[in-house]
């Protein structure tokens, strides 16, 4: 795995796992690889993966069954979408609007292009 420069690795791993869940690589209530397996696969320290899994647990995307491992929550998909939507509305959209304003692009033009995209 190639790691970007700014985001901490554990966050990047968490994002990747979320991507995998959205893509259907990990089924709801399905098991995700053990911390060690995952660490070995992406060549990082086990601690880092532990942090990622802990973070996802806090977000209730994964849950831990003692002795059995980590599993994908039943509503993981919905939660991930909700989190990403929230980030989009709170961060990316305002940044986009700022761009529109700076570059003086009317919203209509944007809507036109959006229709073509669809």
């Amino acid at each position, binding site marked *: 795995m190639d790691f970007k420069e700014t985001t*901490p690795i554990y966050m990047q791993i968490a994002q990747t796992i979320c991507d995998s869940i959205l893509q259907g690589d990990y089924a709801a209530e399905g098991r995700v690889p053990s911390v060690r397996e995952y660490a070995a*696969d992406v*060549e990082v*320290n086990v*601690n880092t993966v532990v942090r990622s899994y802990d973070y996802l647990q806090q977000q209730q995307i994964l849950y831990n069954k003692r002795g059995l491992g980590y599993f994908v929550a039943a509503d993981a998909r919905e939660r991930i979408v909700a989190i990403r939507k929230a980030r989009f509305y709170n961060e990316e959209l305002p940044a986009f609007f700022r761009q529109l304003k700076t570059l003086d692009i009317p919203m209509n033009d944007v809507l036109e292009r959006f229709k073509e995209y669809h």
Partner: protein
Amino acid sequence: MIEVSHLSYRYGRKRPAVFENVSFRLEPGRIYGLLGKNGTGKSTLLYLLSGLLFPQEGSVKYHGLEMRERRPEALGDLYLLPETFRLPNMSLKNYVRLHAPFYPNYSEQLMHSSLEEFDLTPDVHLGQLSMGQQKKAYLSFALATNTSLLLMDEPSNGLDIPSKSQFRRAVARAMTDERTVVISTHQVGDVEALIDRVMIIGNTRLLLDRRAEDITQRLAFRMVRPDETATPIYSQHTLGGEAGIFTRQAGEDETKLNLELLFNATLTAGERMEQVFTNLEK
């Protein structure tokens, strides 16, 4: 567990000291990255840890046993992979037959999985392998000895890029909660993601000995913005602009640890760095 207390060492009465009053512990289940400029004593420290050199002052203890006594119980539970080595001209199987009996925890299974990771078969002949492949075979054996302490001096040197990847995976797979691995290296990029403890030596001292987690909690590694208000603890020119280390503010997102920056900063702005840690500990 290894305990180093008040270690001082020099190579001869007239030579400059390599270490003065250095103390630290190595915990099980951790991968330590040992960084330092050339000639600051990285290899020397590994020799001191493995009982090949004796400190003039202080002690190196392995589970309470003094390493200077060089007991086989201790020696058989640690392994040193030196930077340069020469493997005898024999098959790998024979090599294992000769050496494995000295290591009571040797694991055939670990040997196989490491070899597999490195794309080598158990029936290779050491004399017929390229330098890189020899290193990989030797690495496999070192991992397979299953010792509590594994010391590696520049292990990724001489490995091509795909092999560095294999190296990381092999080490990650061989890691357990009881093993301690110390990787001494210049190639920070090779091990950045693998280590969870950073040790930086220089000027006869241990300049930094911190968990990677702690570092990224207290420090932010990012580019210096043109409109930056905060003063970086340290900054340097890079291709993409000015890279800097800042005290991480409450609520600020954590950034990825940049070992190269950290290393340079420790060497040039060591006191300021240390202050950040001690201030927050109060």
